[in-house]
C-alpha cells in the first residue's frame, strides 16, 4: 500500500473567492487498475464544506494552462482527447472518504516518455520513475501552493 499522506495546508486568502481559508489534503495512492501512483486530494472551505469543481478548477492548486478546454459537470472534468475524465470524484482507496483525483490512465505513457529522455542506471530506476512522475504532476498541480504562505 503506497499511500503517502503528503501535507495539510491551511491557506489564508490566497484565492479571491468566497472562502477565506482553504484546507487541502493531498495523497498519493496506488491505482490498482492502472498500476501507477495517482494523485488524490480534497479541498474544503472554512466551514468544512467541500468546494465545488468550479472553485477547485479555478483555485491556485491547478495551473490554469493545465486544465484545457474542458467540459465541467457536477461529477467530473472531462477533456475531449481522453476516454476518462481528467479530474473525477472517487473514494480514497484506503480511507474510503470522498476525494477528487487526477485520472491516472495516461500516467504510464507520459512518465515513460520522460524516462526515455533520462539516462539512468538499473538500480536507480524506481526512484527516477517517481521523480519523473512528480515532474509530470508538477506541470498540472502547483505542489508548492500553501507552503510559500507560511
Amino acid at each position, binding site marked *: 500500500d503506497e499511500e503517502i499522506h503528503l501535507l495539510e495546508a491551511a491557506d489564508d486568502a490566497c484565492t479571491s473567492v468566497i472562502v477565506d481559508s482553504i484546507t487541502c489534503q493531498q495523497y498519493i495512492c496506488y491505482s*490498482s*487498475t*492502472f498500476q501507477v501512483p495517482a494523485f488524490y486530494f480534497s479541498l474544503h472551505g472554512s466551514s*468544512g*464544506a*467541500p468546494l*465545488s469543481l468550479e472553485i477547485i478548477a479555478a483555485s491556485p492548486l491547478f495551473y490554469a494552462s493545465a486544465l484545457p478546454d474542458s467540459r465541467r*459537470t*457536477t*461529477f*467530473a472534468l472531462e477533456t475531449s482527447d481522453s*476516454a*476518462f*475524465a481528467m479530474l*473525477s*470524484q*472517487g*473514494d480514497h*482507496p*484506503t480511507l*474510503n*472518504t*470522498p476525494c477528487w483525483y487526477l485520472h491516472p*490512465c495516461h500516467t504510464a505513457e507520459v512518465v515513460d516518455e520522460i524516462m526515455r529522455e533520462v539516462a539512468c542506471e538499473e538500480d536507480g530506476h524506481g526512484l527516477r520513475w517517481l521523480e519523473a512522475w512528480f515532474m509530470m504532476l508538477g506541470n498540472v498541480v502547483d505542489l508548492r501552493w500553501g507552503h510559500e504562505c507560511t
Partner: protein
Amino acid sequence: MTTYARHSPSAFSTTASTTLFRRLTWEGTVPLEIRVDSKELPANSDRGLECYYVQAPRVSYLPLVVPELKRFLMDVVFDEAAARVVKEEDWWFEGEDGTTLKWHWPIGLIYDNYTITSSVRSTPSSSQTAAPLRLVLHLASPPTDRLLLSPSAESCKQAFMGQMKEADFIRWGNTKRMTGLRKAEQDGLWEGIREHNFDEYWRVASKVTPTTAPTRSQSPPPGNSTSLHTRPPSADPNTGSAPDRDGAYNVRSVPVRIYLPEGPVLQDLVPPNLDDGLPHTLGSFLSTHLPLLFPPSSSDPPFQDLAYPLIQGVVAPLDAEVAWLGACMAGADGWVNVCIGLLRDR
C-alpha cells in the same frame, strides 16, 4: 441447437448458458424498505404512511429509485407546502446501523455489503429469505465527508461510464472497445439500466463484454438460442481453432473487487489463467489474497470454513472460474464484486 458435452473445465460455456446467467444476474432484485427520517418529516405530513417498499434491481442505483420514491412521498406524505421545498439533490440514505449508503454503488452491492457486515455483528438471522434492507431517507444536509457530491442521475451515469471504461482497460489494457462505441450506444447502456431493459443494455454491452462462447457476432435474443450453432469453446487448447480474440479467457485480467465487512475494498490483477495453464478459480484467487480466511489447501489450518464469497447475492462456489464470472456474473458496470462474509460459530 447442438451442444458439445465436453470434459473441459469450462462446463458452462455455451451461448445459451451465458445468456441465461446474464439474464439471471440482470433480473436479480433486492427488497428495500425506505422510510423518511421522522425528525425530517414536514409538519403536516401523513405519518404512518411514510414507508416505501420497493423490489429494486441489483444493477440499478439509488439515484434511479429517487424519482418513484419522490412521487410516492408527494402523493402520500408531503403536503403542498412541503412538496415545494423538496430538493432531491440533498437527499441521502442511511442504513439501519447508521452507515451512509454510497449512491454510486450498485444497489446489489449495497445489499450484499450489508449482508456481510451483518455477518460479523450480532447474531445474524438464520432465515433463508432475504430480509428487506431498511433505509432511512434524509432530505437535507448530506454528509459530504462520506459521500461524493451531487447525487443526480446524470452524475450516477458518469460514475457508471467511468467504471465501464475502467473494466474495459483492466481486460485489454486499453479502452478501445468502449471508446469505439458511438455516443448513442454508450447512452444506450445507461438507458438500459434506467429502464431496466435487458435487451437494450446487452445490445451494446455484448460488444464490450467478453463472452465464454466462441461465436461473438451478436448476443442471441433470450429464449431463442436454437438459432445459433455452437462450436467447442476456443478456451480448450486441444481444439486447434483460432483463439477467440475477445474471449473471456483471453483477457489480461478480470475486473474484480473484494469487499470485506466494514473494511477496505481490495483490487488486484486477476488473470484468467494461471501459470500452469489451468483456469484461475475464485478459490485460488481468494487463497492468494485472504489466505487466513481461505486456506490454500485442506492441510492448512483452520480446517473449517470460516468465510464465504457472495457474488450477486449468491454464495459462489470456490471452483468457479474467474473468467467465467467476469463474462456471466459481473454487474452492469462490468465489475465482479465479491463480498466476503464470515461464518459464525455453529
